[in-house]
C-alpha cells in the first residue's frame, strides 16, 4: 500500500493507529491552531432552525474529507506504474457528536462506499466522541436581506452554465422559490457569481432565488493535490443541512447528463480521473446516506441527467435569459481569468461550453472574444501550454466523431464505463442503456454539427490556408490525401527490395522486400549506412567515426598516458588504511552514521585503486584513442543490429559475421544478390 495517510482531526489522540505514518496530517476547524475554516454566508436568521446533531457531524466530516483530499497528493501522472499512487488509503479519526450513529455498519458502509466511488480512494473512519460541542452558529454569517420564509427547493449552484440552467428552470420557468448554495472559491469568481445572481433576480422577479454562499479557507500547506474529487460531497452535505433547516428533504444538482456520466474522452482517462461529481451512483449514495441521517427519505437528484449541454443552453435562451450566459463561469483555470478573457478556451469545460453555445445558436450571448483561445480557429500547441490543449480538444472531438457513427451496441462495446451507471438510474437497465446512448448520440451530433457549419463558414480561409496550422479546423479538415500510417514528411518512397536510407532525421529500412520500418537517429545506424553504401570496402573505424562525429576535433589521436601516477596510488592506499582504522572505531562506538559514510569512502577508493592497478600492481594506461574509437564503432554497430533484431530478425542475422566485420577496418561483405538502396 504505497500511498496511505493518517488524518487526525480536531483534538483526537494518536493512540492505537492502524499504521505508522510520520507525515500524518492534523486538521483543526477550531481553536488556536485551526488550519481549516468553514463559513456559511448570507444565512437569514429566519432560516435558522434546530439542526440534528448528525448533520453537524456530517458538515465536519465532509470538511475534513475535502481538505485531506487536497492535502494528500496522488503522486502525479504515474504513467509508468499504471497510476500506483493515484488511489490513496486515507484513515480519518474524527470527533463527532454522535459516534454510535456513525459507527453503525449500515451508515459507515454508505459513507465509505459513496466516497470510495466518488474519489477512487480507500476510506477508513474512526469516530471519537466530541468533547466540546460546537453549534451550527459557529459556521454561520448572517445577513439582513429580506426572506419571506418560503423555500421550495435547495439547488447547488456552481455558477457554470448547467447550474445557471437549473436556476432558470426553477425560478424563471417553474416560478419556484429556491435557495442556491454556492461555493465562493475566490473573490474573482465571487464577483462574477454575484453579478450573475443579480441578473437572475431581475429575470425571476418575485421568485428571485436566495443565495447561501460557502467559503472554505485552509492553510497553504494543505493544497498539494488539485483533483478535489470529494468537492461534491462537501456541497451535498452543506446543501442537505440547509434543506433540513428549511424542512425540505430534497437537494438538486443541475448538471448535463454527458458530464454527469463523464465517459472518458481519452484512453489515458481511467477510473475517477474522469470526475464522478454527479454520477448517478454518487447521487444515489448521497441519497441513501442522507436518508439514514434524516430518518426519512431524502433525495439528491439531477433533473438534467437526460439533457446535453447544448439543450441546457437552449433552455436558458428560450426562457429569455440568454444574456446571462456570458456571466456564467465554466473555466477551471480560475487563475487565468481576466475581464477581457473570462474563459481560457482550452480546458475541458471551456471546450464543452463553447461547443454547446455554438450548437444552441447562442453565440450572440456569449461572444467569442471572451475566450482566450477560439474554439475553432485559435492556435493550440501542446508545447509550452498547460494541460496539453491540442490533446484535449482532439480527444473531445474524436470521441464525438466516433459516437456519431455508432449504434447502441457499438457504443456500449466501446465505452465500458457507461455500464457503471446502468443499475443506479431508476428503470429497466436495458431502457436506461438506450437513454444513455441516445443522450450521447445527440451530444455527438451537436458537436460535429458545429464543426460542419464552421467548415462551411470558413471554407475560403481553409482553402487559402489562412488559419493557424494548429487550430481545430485545420486539424479536422481533410485535404483529400489518403490517411496513412507512413510518414508524410517525405513523400518519396524507396522502391528497392533492400533499403537503408535517411529520411529527415530517421532511417527507413527494408530488407528482402519486407515491410518498411524505421530506426531512430543513432551513430550505429549511421555507421551501418556507411558500410551498406560501400560493400566489400574495408573502411577505417576512425574515418567512420570522424564522418559521423559532430565535434571532429575530438579525434586527434594519441595515448592518454597512465591512468594514475604512483604517488597518487600510494596516497590512496594510505588513505585506505586510515579509513579502516576509523571504521573499526565507528563499529566499536556503534555509530551508524559514521559507519555508512566511511564505508562509502572505502568503496570509492578501493574502486579507484582497482581501476588504476593492472597485473602485479603495475599502473594501467588509458587506452589510446584508436582503440577507443574501434571499440565505440563496434559497440554502436552491435547496438544498431540489436535494435534491428526487434523488427526484422532476418536482417539482424544478415548483418552479422561473416557479412559484417567489425575491428579497426569494418567491412560489409554481402552475398552477391543483395543490392542496397541508400
Amino acid at each position, binding site marked *: 500500500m504505497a*500511498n496511505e495517510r493518517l488524518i487526525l482531526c480536531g483534538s483526537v489522540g494518536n493512540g492505537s493507529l492502524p499504521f505508522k505514518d510520520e507525515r500524518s496530517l492534523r486538521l483543526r476547524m477550531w481553536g488556536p491552531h485551526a488550519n481549516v475554516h468553514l463559513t456559511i454566508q448570507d444565512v437569514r436568521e429566519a432560516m435558522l432552525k434546530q439542526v440534528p446533531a448528525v448533520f453537524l457531524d456530517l458538515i465536519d466530516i465532509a470538511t475534513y474529507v475535502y481538505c485531506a483530499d487536497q492535502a494528500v497528493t496522488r503522486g502525479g501522472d504515474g*504513467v*509508468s506504474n*499504471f497510476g500506483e499512487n493515484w*488511489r*490513496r*488509503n486515507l484513515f480519518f479519526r474524527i470527533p463527532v457528536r454522535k459516534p454510535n450513529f456513525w459507527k453503525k455498519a449500515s451508515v459507515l458502509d454508505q459513507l465509505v462506499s459513496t466516497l*470510495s466511488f466518488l474519489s*477512487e480512494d*480507500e476510506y477508513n473512519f474512526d469516530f471519537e466522541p466530541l468533547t466540546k460541542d460546537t453549534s451550527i452558529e459557529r459556521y454561520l454569517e448572517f445577513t439582513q436581506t429580506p426572506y419571506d420564509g418560503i423555500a421550495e427547493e435547495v439547488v447547488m449552484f*456552481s455558477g457554470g452554465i448547467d447550474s445557471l440552467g437549473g436556476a432558470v428552470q426553477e425560478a424563471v420557468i417553474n416560478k419556484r422559490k429556491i435557495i442556491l448554495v454556492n461555493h465562493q472559491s475566490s473573490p474573482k469568481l465571487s464577483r462574477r457569481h454575484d453579478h450573475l445572481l443579480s441578473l437572475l433576480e431581475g429575470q425571476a422577479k418575485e421568485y428571485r432565488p436566495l443565495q447561501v454562499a460557502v467559503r472554505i479557507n485552509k492553510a497553504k500547506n494543505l493544497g498539494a493535490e488539485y483533483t478535489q474529487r470529494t468537492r*461534491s460531497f462537501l456541497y451535498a452535505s452543506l446543501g442537505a443541512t440547509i434543506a433540513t433547516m428549511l424542512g425540505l428533504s430534497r437537494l438538486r444538482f443541475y*448538471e448535463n447528463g454527458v458530464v454527469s456520466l463523464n465517459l472518458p*474522452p*481519452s484512453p*489515458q482517462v*481511467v477510473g475517477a480521473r474522469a470526475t464522478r*461529481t454527479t454520477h448517478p451512483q454518487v447521487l444515489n449514495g448521497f441519497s441513501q446516506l442522507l436518508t439514514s441521517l434524516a430518518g426519512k427519505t431524502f433525495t439528491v437528484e439531477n433533473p438534467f441527467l437526460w439533457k446535453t449541454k447544448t439543450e441546457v443552453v437552449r433552455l436558458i435562451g428560450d426562457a429569455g435569459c440568454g444574456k446571462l450566459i456570458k456571466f456564467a463561469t465554466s473555466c477551471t483555470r480560475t487563475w487565468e481569468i481576466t475581464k477581457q478573457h473570462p474563459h481560457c478556451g482550452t480546458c*475541458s*469545460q471551456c471546450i*464543452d461550453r463553447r461547443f454547446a453555445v455554438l450548437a444552441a445558436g447562442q453565440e450572440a450571448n456569449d461572444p467569442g472574444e471572451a475566450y482566450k483561445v477560439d474554439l475553432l480557429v485559435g492556435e493550440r500547441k501542446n*508545447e509550452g501550454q498547460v*494541460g*496539453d490543449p*491540442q*490533446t484535449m480538444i*482532439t480527444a473531445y472531438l474524436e470521441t464525438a466523431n466516433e459516437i456519431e457513427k455508432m449504434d447502441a*451496441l457499438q457504443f*456500449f*462495446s*466501446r*465505452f*465500458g464505463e457507461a*455500464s*457503471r451507471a*446502468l*443499475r443506479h438510474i431508476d428503470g429497466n*437497465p*436495458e431502457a436506461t442503456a*438506450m437513454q444513455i446512448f441516445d443522450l450521447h448520440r445527440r451530444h455527438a451530433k451537436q458537436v460535429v454539427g458545429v464543426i460542419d457549419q464552421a467548415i462551411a463558414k470558413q471554407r475560403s480561409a481553409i482553402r487559402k490556408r489562412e488559419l493557424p496550422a*494548429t487550430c481545430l479546423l*485545420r*486539424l*479536422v479538415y481533410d*485535404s483529400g*490525401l489518403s*490517411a496513412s500510417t*507512413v510518414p508524410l*514528411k517525405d513523400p518519396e518512397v524507396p522502391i528497392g527490395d533492400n533499403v537503408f536510407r535517411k529520411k529527415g532525421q*530517421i532511417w527507413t529500412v527494408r*530488407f528482402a522486400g*519486407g*515491410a*518498411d*520500418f524505421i530506426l*531512430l537517429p543513432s551513430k550505429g545506424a549511421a555507421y551501418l549506412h556507411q558500410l551498406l553504401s560501400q560493400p566489400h570496402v574495408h573502411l577505417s573505424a576512425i574515418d567512420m567515426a570522424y564522418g559521423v562525429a559532430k565535434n571532429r576535433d575530438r579525434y586527434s589521436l594519441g595515448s592518454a598516458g597512465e591512468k594514475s601516477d604512483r604517488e597518487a596510488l600510494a596516497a590512496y592506499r594510505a588513505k585506505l588504511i586510515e579509513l579502516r582504522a576509523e571504521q573499526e572505531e565507528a563499529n566499536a562506538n556503534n555509530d551508524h552514521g559514521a559507519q555508512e559514510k566511511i564505508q562509502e569512502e572505502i568503496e570509492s577508493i578501493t574502486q579507484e585503486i582497482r581501476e588504476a592497478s593492472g597485473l602485479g600492481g603495475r599502473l594501467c594506461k588509458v587506452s589510446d584513442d584508436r582503440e577507443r574509437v574501434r571499440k565505440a564503432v563496434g559497440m554502436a554497430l552491435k547496438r544498431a543490429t540489436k535494435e534491428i533484431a526487434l*523488427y*526484422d*530478425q*532476418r536482417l539482424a542475422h544478415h548483418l552479422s559475421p561473416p557479412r559484417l566485420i567489425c575491428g579497426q577496418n569494418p567491412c560489409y561483405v554481402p552475398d552477391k544478390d543483395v543490392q542496397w538502396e541508400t
Partner: protein
Amino acid sequence: MGHIRLGALPRTRKWTKVVGLIEGGAGTAQVANATISAAETGLGLAAKDKGVIETIWLLTKLPLAARSENFAESLRDCGLAVADSPGLMEIVGSVSDTIDSRIPNCKGRTDLGEMAQMAAAETLTEVIGQRTKSFFGTTPDDVQRAFSKLATNKQFSAFAKDFFARFTNKCMNYFLSRALSHHLGEGQRFTTLSQQAEFTRALGTHCREAARIIEEFSGGWFSKRNWETGGAITREDIAEFTSYAMRKLVDELKQGARSDGQ
C-alpha cells in the same frame, strides 16, 4: 465540474524512443513493439493484479451459470445482484458493480484492473449483443442461450480473444494517447485528426491480430480446467492462465513487429 486533465508520456529513454518512432513515421507494429517494451514491467503485473484476476474469473463463471437450470440464481451465487430474468445490460452492469465492490480502492485496485473491468463490460456487450443481434427487445432466454454457448471450446476461445484484444489495446492507448496528438498538424506525423484516428484503429487491429494467440489455447484450457475442477475454476487457476496469456500476448506483439519486416 466534469474536470479532466490530460498528460504526456514520461521522458525516460524507453518512452522517448516510442515518441521518436511515432514522430518518425513508424508503423503500428513497430510502435506497438516499442510501447510493449517500455511498459513490459507494468504489464507483467497483470497476472498478479487482483482486479484483472477477479474480472477474468467472473467472465469464466458466466457461461457456466448460463448452463445451470436457474441462470439468475447461479449469477447471484457468483455475487451478481440481478433480478430473476436478467437482460444483457443488467448483467453487464452487475458485473461492473460486483468487481467495484470486491476490489476496493487501494486494496488491489489499479489502472490495469480498471482497464480489464472496462474491457470485460465491452466484450460482454459485443459478444452477447452480436449473438442476440441487439440488446433491446431480446428476451432473457435469448441472453441466457447466448451466454451458455460461450461454454464451448470454440466460443470461449473467441470470447477470450475479444477480451484480451480489448485489454491490450486499452493498455497501449493508455500510453499512446499521451503522445499521438503531439504529432498532429501540418508538417507533423498526422496532418489531420482522421489520420491520427486511422493509426489508432490500425493499432486496435494489430492488437486483435496479436490476440489470436489467445484463441489458440484459451478454449482448450477452459474446457480442461472446468472438467478437472468440476466447474469450480479458482482465482489461482485464473492467475496462472492470465500469466501465460499475457506472456504469449507480449511475445506476439513483439513478434508481430518482426514478422512485418519479413
